[in-house]
């Protein structure tokens, strides 16, 4: 089976098969000698042609997070069918067109400056998100009307949590 692995902005073609129940991976036309041993829930030892890597792998929303040395690699693995579907443009445009403002970092909502129905200009303060004692002003990305306010002061929010929804935004 052929996969396209995307790490950073780099695409790497992988061929994967099993021999005697063991996975064999071809990367850049070379099938390195591989050995993966699980050390703990998230931590693994990987030998690649004898080179030792201590890494952590966790599934993420659309792939895997791999911690290795100084970096966290976000690896997406897509097979041929995935790529065909994407090329046909069948990936629905779920969130990109909405006026949803999400939390850029996890934190606590300390104040909300807008209410439903309010007209806001681009750059106008919507609310204050406090994370680890630093106050961060969350501003409207574009002008529009506040349709929904998902949070109130005192709420703890995760990164990416919806905060406010704007409607009637030009270009959104």
């Amino acid at each position, binding site marked *: *089976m052929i*996969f396209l*692995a995307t*790490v*950073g902005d*780099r695409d*790497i073609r*992988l061929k*994967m*098969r*099993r021999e005697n129940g063991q*996975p064999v*991976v071809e*990367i*850049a036309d070379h099938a*390195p000698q*591989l050995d*993966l041993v699980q050390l*703990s*829930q*998230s*931590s*693994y030892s*990987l030998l*690649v042609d004898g*080179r030792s*890597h*201590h*890494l*952590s*792998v*966790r*599934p*993420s*929303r659309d*792939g*895997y997070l*791999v911690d*290795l*040395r*100084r*970096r*966290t*690699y976000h*690896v997406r*693995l897509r*097979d041929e*069918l995935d790529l065909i579907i994407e090329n046909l443009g069948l990936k629905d445009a779920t969130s990109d067109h909405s006026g949803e403002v999400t939390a*850029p*970092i*996890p934190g*606590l909502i*300390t104040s909300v400056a807008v209410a439903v129905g309010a007209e806001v200009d681009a750059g106008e303060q919507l609310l204050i998100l*406090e994370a*680890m*004692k*630093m*106050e961060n*002003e969350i501003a409207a990305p574009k002008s529009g009307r506040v349709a929904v306010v998902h949070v109130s002061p005192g709420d703890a929010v995760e*990164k990416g949590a919806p905060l406010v929804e704007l409607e009637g935004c030009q270009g959104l």
Partner: protein
Amino acid sequence: MIKKLLIANRGEIAVRVIRSCRELDIPAVAVYSEADRSAPHVLMADEAICIGPPPSVESYLNVTNILEAARSTGADAIHPGYGFLSENAGFARSVLNTGLTWIGPGPETLEQMGDKVAARRLALEVGAPVVPGSIEPVTDLAAAEKTATEVGYPVLIKAAGGGGGKGMRVVTVADELPTAFERARSEAASAFADDRVYVEKVLGQPHHVEIQIFADSHGRVVSLGERECSIQRRYQKIIEETPSPFIAPEVREQLSALSVKIAAACHYLSAGTVEFLVDGDQNYYFLEMNTRLQVEHPITELVTGLDLVAEQLRVASGESLSFDQDDIQPRGYALECRIYAEDGFESFAPSTGNVLELSAPSGMGVRLDHGIRQGLEITPYYDPILGKLCAWGRTRPEAVRRMVRALEELRIIGVRTTVPFCMAVMNHPAFMEGNYCTSFISDYLPELVSWSEEETNHLGEAAVLGAALFAAARRPTTSDRTDSRSAKSDWVRLGRERQVSQ
């Protein structure tokens, strides 16, 4: 001597204080918020008392509950650590009025040196130059604008009631002043319960150099040498070292002598730090005095061989300092990297989550102080410091190499930390040469965060292989095309299940 010590703090500093208690055979009482029930300082202490809900105003800043915890456990002394109530004169006074011993300088000293205006006045009296800025705290925007115009932009707005980069904003042009002024006041109010701020001129290419002093109640004040703390982001230190690779020997002596004078003039007791800015021409200016144990005290301990917390407990009990100035002969070089729950490669964005894995470095010349454990949830309620990694060497290059090695050994998985960023700093030529000032991070940020060829290519491939094998281990062994969608959906489902369970 103290019979039982309550530590009014959390995280790595609470753990640090408990360690000295153990060695001195003093029972330790931890206090904790509901968010910290299973934190290491609670696990390590002899007794632990819940002092309220997660927000610090209701727990670690809750004077009533902390004093009640001391009363109910029979503690006869309180160590405040750093941050929270450590420089709060009102709290110190309440502790003393309750008949307990306060580990730190007296309330009058806290008041005088905590009031930055009074501190500057005192510094001037003993002959220490100060940075140009507002004489009195500014309470309204007009006053802030007036001072800023007088001393000239860029200016710094600083909380009058505390430090640590909170309630602090740099303003480069007049237009930015109103917003920065409001944010700084609001942050200062929430962090220190004091919304007064003052305005100070920003110096060009400055070094942040501080002197550790120690004073007992018998009038002896000793300087334990300096720490260079110029590697900062958002005006918060991230890497410190001693001795400073920058200051001249005569400047070192002058700063030490002035710091001892300042400490004597404010009738200091216990450990304290006098902070200076030193410009590129070695002109120095008194900045402020930190009237508590500093985060970065371990590097001073590494070169002097002293346990500053144990010394604090002894002098608080009325004992004389166990050393005098002649005994202080710092040996070698020590570095500290602060481990924050922040992604150094993404503008130091805070990171929260579960510590899936923690593996500590060890070996010669390495010291790790931390307040986390595997399985601990890092919450957004408190300061993001998770711990501090220190390394000692006979020479500076040896200490730097050892630090790199120790940073490589330190694995914290589950939350993003500043470990990778600190590694990038250690490997930067300007840092290796000891040639840096407080603008180091902003000056070199692009190269510090850039990916090396090895990281992009070789390690990138290893990461891909790791992910592929991880995935393969979790899918059915058949590999024919018709089955691959369901097999693939297994991977996806697994990913979702894992996310839900986390």
